């Protein structure tokens, strides 16, 4: 673990009008760490994640990436975003482009790479998620799990320092959840720093270095998975986990 953290949220606040959804979140993520965020619906997990690459503008606090505050007005946010990959619940693949077209779009438009160079990098990224043979296929012809893996390839092809996942398996058929989790595990094993909002408690318990429990727009409790799942300190964490495991 390097000395200075990769991502630091300091007193992060977010409000939609008068609705406060983040009430001062402090979070540190170190390089190579995989941090899972769990919590009830509406607790602000997505909002926190989406502030990290400023898809949502925070209303207060600081977001520090590799020592640099990215909330300032003079920040080149498009440059920052290339170093922070994001994977969405609904995949959000571009339906008019092939799998390879999806993966290479930013390489070509933002980084100005040639079609050949982008194509080679894109194929390598698709290979990492086991979909090299689907390069020329359109998203509409892929299963949910395959689409989500293409979405992961679209993010990692830019060689991000940090990957954000917002419930990456929640929109999937149960039978394809496994292949996406597997791709995520492999990504983690390759040393990627990951911040993952998930309802897959089994995955969080077994794959995370640290688990964050959020409720009411704040972090209630955090720690290694065996502590959070095995011996939660807070009543709210306990209540959430009981309710959650009784569903599953």
């Amino acid at each position, binding site marked *: 673990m390097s000395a200075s953290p990769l991502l630091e949220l300091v007193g992060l606040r977010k409000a939609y009008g008068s609705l406060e959804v983040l009430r001062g979140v402090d979070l540190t993520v170190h390089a190579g760490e995989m941090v899972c965020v769990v919590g009830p619906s509406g607790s602000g997990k997505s909002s926190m994640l989406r502030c990290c690459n400023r898809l949502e503008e925070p209303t207060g606090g600081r977001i520090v990436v590799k020592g640099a505050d990215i909330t300032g007005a003079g920040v080149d946010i498009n*440059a920052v975003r290339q170093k922070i*990959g994001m994977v969405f619940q609904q995949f959000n693949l571009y339906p008019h482009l092939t799998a390879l077209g999806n993966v290479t*779009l930013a390489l070509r438009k933002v980084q100005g790479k040639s079609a050949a160079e982008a194509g080679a990098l894109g194929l390598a990224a698709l290979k990492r998620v086991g979909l090299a043979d689907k390069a020329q296929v359109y998203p509409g012809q892929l299963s949910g799990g395959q689409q989500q893996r293409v*979405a992961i390839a679209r993010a990692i092809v830019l060689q991000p320092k940090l990957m954000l996942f917002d419930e990456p398996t929640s929109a999937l058929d149960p039978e394809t959840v496994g292949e996406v989790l597997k791709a995520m595990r492999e990504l983690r094993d390759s040393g990627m720093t990951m911040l993952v909002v998930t309802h897959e408690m089994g995955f969080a318990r077994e794959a995370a270095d640290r688990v964050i429990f959020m409720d009411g727009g704040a972090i209630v409790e955090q720690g290694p998975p065996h502590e959070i799942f095995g011996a939660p300190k807070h009543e709210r964490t306990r209540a959430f986990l009981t309710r959650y495991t009784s569903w599953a």
Partner: protein
Amino acid sequence: MDGFARLLDTFFNAEVAARYWPEILAGVWITIGVGIAVTVTGLTIGLGLAILRAKQWAWLAVPIVAFADIMRALPPLIVIIVFFFAFPLIGISMSAFTATWLSLSLVLAAYAEESLWGAILSLPRGQSEAARSTGLTWWQTMSAVILPQALRLALPPLTNRVIAVSKNVALGSVVALSEVLNNAQSATSTAGNPTPLTMAAAAYLAIFIPAMVLARRMENRMQWRV
């Protein structure tokens, strides 16, 4: 003469047709020319307005919506008359060609803007979020992710509207634009025989049936890989 022969003599008179076909043909070129010019400028302006509206600047949205509503509410004939007869009174004179072309371009632009804007709005928000999250700028997102999808969605209403508005080139006859219908009408009164109108009808079919076939082909091709 029996009825059928009279019908032939009146509407399909070979002698009249031979005398007036050069004028009809000249009209055909004008109609096609104005139609294409209207299509190009109308779609371009409509696209530009839809993009500007997507910027979501409140001060710009209001005039764009007003423009689109007014241009769609007014009969195109009135727009042409205003451009040709009223604008000279405030010192802006224009030829029959310019008045027809400009009027119909603005009408088409209004419809195109509405179709494209509707298509842009119907796309999931996640599309632009995904693009922005990989570092694409607003404009790169618009041009590479949003517009290709919006254009495909809006293609059927757009092609219908292009054909409907192009047909309105015939309205240019009120400002003496020498397009097909105008030439046919004057030929009809000089000849005292409506055969030129039959020729005009044939000319319209010859122009617009291929246009419709082309439009349908484009729509089908765009539908393939969804």
